[in-house]
């Protein structure tokens, strides 16, 4: 009959006193180093800054308003060319004759509420005012264009404003402060430049 005997032998580390302390210290150092690295070089999700009196075209507008906004943004290029051709701002009829959305009256225009566009201009400013859209909850739109001198060259500064309600007529003043007081919101695009900066962060 075989008898097995279990033998237990405890081996103590040579530096028992310091081993646990050193291990904890090493862990703490690792956590501190990675945390500092993340704080200094870590990726931070870039958030577009939208002020109280602004709206994001990307996330705050419904599909119809977003489409009209994007088309207004593209129309600015052609309006600029037309103004340079004739030295005068183009009328809404001029824009329609050039198939320029959102002014051109086609099925897209009908699907987006058949918005009525009006034009007015001052010394250095053109205003295209969209109102009376037929869709439920559809408000009003403003495209404002200014020729301004910046540095050595002339630049066209454009802004698009949106109001949640239909208007009785063109705003009396299209200065920023007046529009903000009247409840208008400036629409800010999220453009390829913004996305590229986010991707490269």
């Amino acid at each position: 009959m075989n008898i097995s005997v279990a033998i237990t032998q405890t081996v103590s580390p040579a530096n028992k006193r310091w081993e646990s302390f050193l291990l904890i210290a090493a862990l703490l150092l690792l956590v501190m180093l990675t945390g500092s690295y993340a704080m200094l070089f870590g990726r931070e999700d870039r958030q577009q800054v939208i002020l109280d009196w602004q709206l994001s075209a990307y996330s705050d507008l419904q599909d119809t308003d977003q489409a009209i906004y994007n088309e207004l943004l593209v129309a600015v290029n052609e309006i600029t060319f037309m103004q340079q051709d004739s030295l005068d701002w183009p009328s809404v009829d001029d824009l329609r004759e050039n198939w320029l959305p959102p002014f051109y009256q086609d099925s897209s225009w009908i699907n987006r509420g058949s918005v009525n566009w009006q034009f007015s201009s001052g010394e250095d400013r053109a205003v295209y005012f969209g109102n009376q859209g037929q869709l439920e909850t559809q408000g009003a739109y403003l495209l404002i264009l200014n020729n301004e001198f910046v540095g050595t060259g002339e630049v066209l500064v454009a802004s698009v404003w949106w109001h949640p309600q239909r208007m009785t007529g063109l705003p009396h003043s299209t200065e920023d402060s007046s529009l903000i007081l009247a409840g208008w919101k400036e629409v800010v695009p999220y453009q390829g430049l913004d996305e590229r900066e986010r991707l490269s962060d």
Partner: protein
Amino acid sequence: MVVLALSFSSLSIAQDFKNGERMTIGVTLHPYYSFVANIVGDLADIEPLIGAGYNPHNYNPLPEDLVRARSMDVIVVNGIGHDEWAFEILQASGAGDTPLIYANNSVSLIPVAGNDEAVNAHTFISTVTAIQQIYEIARELGRYDPDNAQAYARNGRAYATSLRRLKAEYSQQFSDLDTSNFRAATMHGAYGYLLQEFGLQISAVIEPRHGVEPTARQLAQTIEAIRAANVNVLFAEKFFAGQLAETIQAETGVEVYSFSHISEGDYTPEFYESEMRFNLDSLKAAVESTAPSL
């Protein structure tokens, strides 16, 4: 306030980095070949960064791409997620300092339908956002080649007008159609800009795997998703429709049409308009199929 467009006089800040020599302009995607070809005419050479017939979604660079990349003076890129491989090619070829024209810099972006977190990088599948890119590319090319800046601006404007006319041709045909019954799903999240410009919406994006035939399990899940989405039209991918579309149509009863992603075929100046016309024909047929009969 946002400076949305520079007046023409501001082009005088351009750097004449080629000293009047003829430029070779690189492009990453098929639409950019057509855009640039129509902007420059015969005033510059155009070279695609990759050969025709490759899927730009998951492209793996080839050795010959590296050689080609070194011959380019400036490259037009999408830059918002559709041609990330281009940056790998440029780095690997030692041409990482080649000037880039980011076609989407001034394009107002929208999310992929049903996913606000994902930016839709397919800005070239819509006349509105294509036109914004054409203006952007023409402006930027003028900065690199000031001698021809006026011609680029003029040609870009003419090309933009022809695309607007193309869209108007179709949207006038849609005017008599009732779209209230139109409920569409797409098999790729690329087509939000296209439907948005016609005042139409995508109810669901049902994407098993873009550009690759789905497995039997993925197909079963796709069919289930289409039933759940309560749509009456499905847009499949032009080059992957075929048998897949027939199966889906038989199983779900939805009408299946196809859209072109505008990324397959030869690089030609006419390619973009031709593929957009295909898309608009497809959209028109789909709208007609859902319009209530009188």
